[in-house]
């Protein structure tokens, strides 16, 4: 599935919910499905800055696809990370670099996108794209 197709799938899933509470309950569920990062990667170098909760992200290449694993000590943050990783993981770095993230708005998480928000969603997206840039160079 392309990044675009995955985003549409997530938008579909979230459109089933009538209120914020169902959306958040679903996000908490998604958090529990996050591909858990190997303990050895839960180090300070893999921490994303700008989050009130801790978020660790690790990236590695599988052929020409970039695979992300992550974790967070806060469950809602973990849900947000899970959504991002579902969209970006297993994609070619160039696709990740070019992807837009407007779908966040459509699933009712727009308020999490503010750069001043302490959850660091913006920092997370930036970090995933930075990994993509780094590995893109490696692939070339």
């Amino acid at each position, binding site marked *: 599935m392309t990044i675009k197709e995955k985003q549409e799938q997530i938008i579909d899933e979230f459109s089933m919910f009538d209120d*914020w*509470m169902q959306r*958040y*309950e679903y996000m*908490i569920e998604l958090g529990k499905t996050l591909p858990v990062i190997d303990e050895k990667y839960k180090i300070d170098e893999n921490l994303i800055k700008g989050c*009130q*909760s*801790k978020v660790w992200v690790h990236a590695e290449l599988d052929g020409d696809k970039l695979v992300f694993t992550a974790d967070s*000590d*806060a*469950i*809602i*943050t973990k849900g947000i990370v899970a959504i991002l990783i579902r969209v970006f993981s297993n994609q070619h770095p160039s696709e990740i670099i070019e992807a837009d993230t407007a779908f966040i708005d459509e699933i009712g998480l727009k308020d999490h996108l503010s750069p001043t928000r*302490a*959850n660091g969603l913006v920092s997370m997206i930036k970090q995933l794209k930075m990994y993509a840039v780094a590995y893109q160079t490696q692939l070339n």
Partner: protein
Amino acid sequence: MSQQTQATTFDVERIREDFPILKRSVNGYPLVYFDNAATSQTPKQVMDVIVDYYSNYNANIHRGVHSLSQEATDKYEQARKTVQQHLNAEKAHEIIFTSGTTHGINLVANGFASILKEGEEILVSAMEHHSNIVPWQMLCEKTGAKLKVIPMNDRGELIYSEFEEILSPNTKLVFLNHVSNALGTVNPIKKIIDKAHSVNAAVLIDGAQAAPHIKADVQELGVDFYVISAHKMCGPTGVGVLYGREEWLEKLPPYQGGGEMIATVSFEKTTYAGLPHKFEAGTPNICGGIAFAAALDYMNAIGFSEIAGYEQELLEYAAKKLKEIEGMKIYGEASEKTAVISFNIEGLHPYDIGTLLDKMGIAVRTGHHCAQPIMDFFKIPGTVRASFSFYNTFGEIDRFIEAVKKAKMMLQ
């Protein structure tokens, strides 16, 4: 309803009429504002003063010969007198307008750079806001002075005997808060000031968190410096006051150079203005200072003992209800504390709880509250902090408790 069982003569519903913001809704729910320790809300009496200033007498002060300038100067200087009376300072020029508590602390720390000598000691409490730690660390770097810490116990109270232990004739300055922002602990500052003075150490008290609840009397306390911010006590942001005892303010060099703070200037030599202008370089926050005085008038008209009494009822009610929730851990259970409750629920991250409370229209603070040493002491990443003000109600606490229970259910 449970709140009706609370016997109080405090007319909170009438007071709430003064605060337009309390009528708004957030995320589809009526706002419950429990982040008062971060900043308080503003009554329309203070907003009216701000509008009146810009509508009728906005002008630069102290230098103008025209009428508007004179009116603005009179009101600004009257505001200084209002603060003086509020803190019971002996002299009006002991009141220095600042941009807030952080500015006041930096001003004093900067002044001590020319007084402290290498190897001399300054003492800080273990429960300070970063703004009452970092300027002093910078001062130590500059001067070679040493920073020592007065420890606290598990209840969030300073250990007085340890303070006596580390205090010595080599101690030049002691600085701590009157009330902890993260825990609400009221520190025994009178006792600490007297003891520090016995070795001739100066004392700076960060009154930012105390000022909304406790009317400090600087003469009775005998304190050397007391700093406060307007925005925590119904005033606007960007303005505060440093009270400094005259002899100390005379001793400290100016903090910033500029207009307003000089007597004469030539390229060979500049002489400084007297107090308070020596410390008020540049055009001050004129409107802010006047509005601060209006906020003090507003709170004094209600009465600080009435405010404190009502807030204590809110605190006790909320603490009792919170403790009924399984897995609840409250941080800071000092015998004397203001209306602040810092807590965590076992197994849950404070950020998650705060996020869900916000979705239910309830504003609390989560995180380390700019007091990381306290979080390290308790070995936690942060807490959820609910802080109450005199315009909050028992009904709001009931809604808050229900929301915490709902968040807990969703997160577990």
